[in-house]
């Protein structure tokens, strides 16, 4: 079954490369026109297209690219001729670093708050945690970011206002510089996970076996942790994984506000300049992230569910 999923994932990735290629080809203007901008004249555009190999037919370019990808070579950027593998490495590391950092804060926090919300359902605590998390998820990321920046960085001076990490940034420095964006991401991603934890638990609490556990005199906390939670993991894990995917692929706005050199900014720059190989590489990474995380979600659902683990 796992093998089948992996093969399907690879097929999805292949389809995505095709869609991206066609999509970017359909965008008005190509790399030559984007590079020349206002300076584009018919002759200079033609000359640059020739230099960049853009005068070749689309299918030839696509197949060449696909061939290289299969050998693990993303090629070079049309814009500046740099090896994409090299840039992608640091950018991907930065993106995953920030996502992991945010997840380390957001996931435990969301699950604990969610459990407590289910435990004290309809209490003052439940209502206020819902209001706070829902407000922060409903506020645009950049706004949350600006508010935090103003309070924590500009007024109090506790944390740096820029997250401009470099290759030579140490791990500790990296943590310090990304704490603020990680907090922003925590605020905007927590509500989803928290509410799913709460909903999944409450859903189970109406089941007969929970009633049984309660009737035999177990403490409510114990009922939730030992009896309800194991059966609630599947939907919670799904939502957590979806949010992890978001933390990796959807944080361009936060990257811009904090000047963080992640993959999102790289992709947007590349789309603006019609730098096809870079766009393809970034999209492929993003798509692979989704496919992989979904696979992990499925595996985890199976692991947490004895019925799926031992099918008979």
């Amino acid at each position, binding site marked *: 079954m796992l093998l089948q999923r992996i093969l399907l994932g690879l097929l999805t990735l292949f389809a995505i490369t095709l869609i991206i290629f066609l999509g970017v080809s359909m*965008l*008005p*203007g190509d790399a*030559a*026109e*984007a*590079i*020349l*901008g*206002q*300076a*584009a*004249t*018919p*002759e*200079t*555009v033609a*000359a*640059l297209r*020739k*230099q960049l190999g853009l005068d070749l037919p689309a299918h030839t370019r696509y197949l060449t690219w696909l061939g290289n990808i299969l050998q693990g070579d993303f090629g070079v*950027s*049309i*814009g*500046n*001729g*740099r090896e994409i593998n090299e*840039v992608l490495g640091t950018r991907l590391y930065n993106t995953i670093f920030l996502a992991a950092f945010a997840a380390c804060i957001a996931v435990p926090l969301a699950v604990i708050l969610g459990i407590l919300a289910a435990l004290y359902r309809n209490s003052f605590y439940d209502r206020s945690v819902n209001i706070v998390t829902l407000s922060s998820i409903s506020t645009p990321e950049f706004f949350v970011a*600006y508010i935090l*920046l103003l309070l924590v*960085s*500009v007024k109090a*001076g506790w944390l*740096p*206002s*820029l997250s*401009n990490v*470099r*290759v030579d940034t140490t791990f500790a420095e990296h943590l310090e510089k990304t704490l603020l964006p990680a907090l922003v991401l925590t605020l905007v991603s927590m509500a989803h996970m928290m509410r799913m934890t709460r909903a999944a638990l409450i859903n189970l609490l109406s089941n007969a076996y929970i009633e049984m556990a309660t009737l035999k005199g177990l403490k409510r906390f114990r009922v939730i942790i030992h009896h309800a939670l194991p059966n609630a993991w599947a939907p919670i894990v799904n939502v957590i994984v979806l949010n992890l995917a978001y933390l990796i692929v959807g944080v361009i706005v936060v990257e*811009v*506000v*904090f*000047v963080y*050199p992640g993959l999102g*900014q*790289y992709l947007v*720059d*590349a*789309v*603006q*300049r019609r*730098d096809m190989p*870079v766009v393809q590489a970034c999209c492929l990474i993003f798509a692979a992230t989704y496919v992989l995380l979904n696979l992990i979600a499925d595996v985890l659902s199976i692991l947490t569910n004895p019925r799926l683990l031992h099918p008979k």
Partner: protein
Amino acid sequence: MNNSNNRIFDLANSRLSRRKFLQASGALGVAGAAPGLFVGSAAQAAAPSMGGHLRIAMVHGSSTDSLDPIRLISSHTTKLFYSVHSTLTEIAADGQLMPLLAESYETGADPSEWIFKLHSGVTFHNGKSLTADDVIASLNRHRGEDSASSMKSIIEGIESITKDGDLVVKFKLSTPSVDFPVVLSDAVLSILPSTDGKIETFDVGCGPYMLEAFEPGQYSHYRRNPNSYLSDRAYVETAELLTIADSTARQNALVTGVVDVISDVDASTAGLLGRNDNVEILNVTSTQHFTFPMRTDLPPFDNNDVRMALKLSIDRDVVLDTILSGYGSLGNDHPISPANRFFNTELEQRVYDPEKAKWHLKQAGMSNLKVELSASDSLYEGCVDTVVLFSEHAKASGIELVPKQVPDDGYWSDVWLKHPWCASYWSGRPTEDWMFTQGYSAESNWNESYWKNDRFNELLLAARAELDDDKRRQMYWEMQAITRDDCGSVIHAFGDHIMAHSHNVVVPDQVAGNWDLDGFKLMQRWWMKA
């Protein structure tokens, strides 16, 4: 002809805080900073102090930026080039054209021949000595059929480049051009080290700073070149240039002391930023202007009465006060700014006049007019808002102006020069000839309103070859009048360059307005407080 005293244009370099600016403009009853109309800051250090680390943040810079001068498209790499490389000539902070890598230059028999004598003993950062061959190889990359350079059309008038010994370069032009040396001050035409007529490295130059690190879209690091042939600049020991695209992030970086200077401060928030005690706003009059070119080859814009009606239907004062918050000056439907040398000071300022616009419409045989104007905020801050304002103003003239917001992406390839009417802007050009040739001459690819005026094109060629300044002035003045009253572009305002800096940097008395960040030469012209 010795050109060392050739005053190409007289930039008004305004140094004033927002508050002083309001006082000054209020007192004179004008909303723009006219040349020479500013209060100089009181304390200026006598001699620049050496050393220190300067950090500059600017908007532009993309992760796909290249150091190949052929693909020099972002301001980040352009500024990098002006620091690391040298051009034959340069536009000094006061707007004069000065020889730079060339020790001097002069015309031959007439202005179609130019002779440049290079500084002797100049070395590149890698130790290689500069010779005429490097100059020829660097410039030849931009010429010829296969060239994909943005400067190709500007320098196609060069018939040949030859050397006379190791330190003399001779240019032969197809037509005489008095302003030719100005073109050679462009960063794209920087002189790079060559081997056997080929340029292979782009990060080694003979400029005042050596490039230590460059990460496209993020930062570049510099160290002072101890062997520089220039002694009148480069005071800070090390510098870094950061790309911070988000304007709030840029302001935060300055306020929290992460950087010392920022460019492109939003006009709408500059006043608020200036209230911070550690921050000084610096406002510089520039040649940058905003245009709305109509395609004069398409109806209804082929009728000059329609064009005039539209030119009379925008309230320029309101646009300057609201969109630009006063950081700019009024446009008079021609691209020559008060900062230019031959600015026509006697041309009457066009004002908002709906009645006259209606009269023009009647002349065109129309009782009302409906037109679409395409715009995008990627051009400049407030572009779409300007169009919306324009549309309100035009109602009084019986014109239905429909603002059409188009995607940011691909604006220059799909909207500009394609749509019948769209928004555009120019960073301006240092000379009248360059500006008119590129944006308004009949043959130019960038003639954005497809405008063909015989008298104008005749004058353009005549002025280019004219050596007598008075006669040239007359011609350029007439050309400004013709553009104002016939061309397809509504040019409503000139925008200032607004920067902000902390108190630990010292700003020289003169700040250039030809480009942002002191003509992109801030790093070599400013210094740190001792």
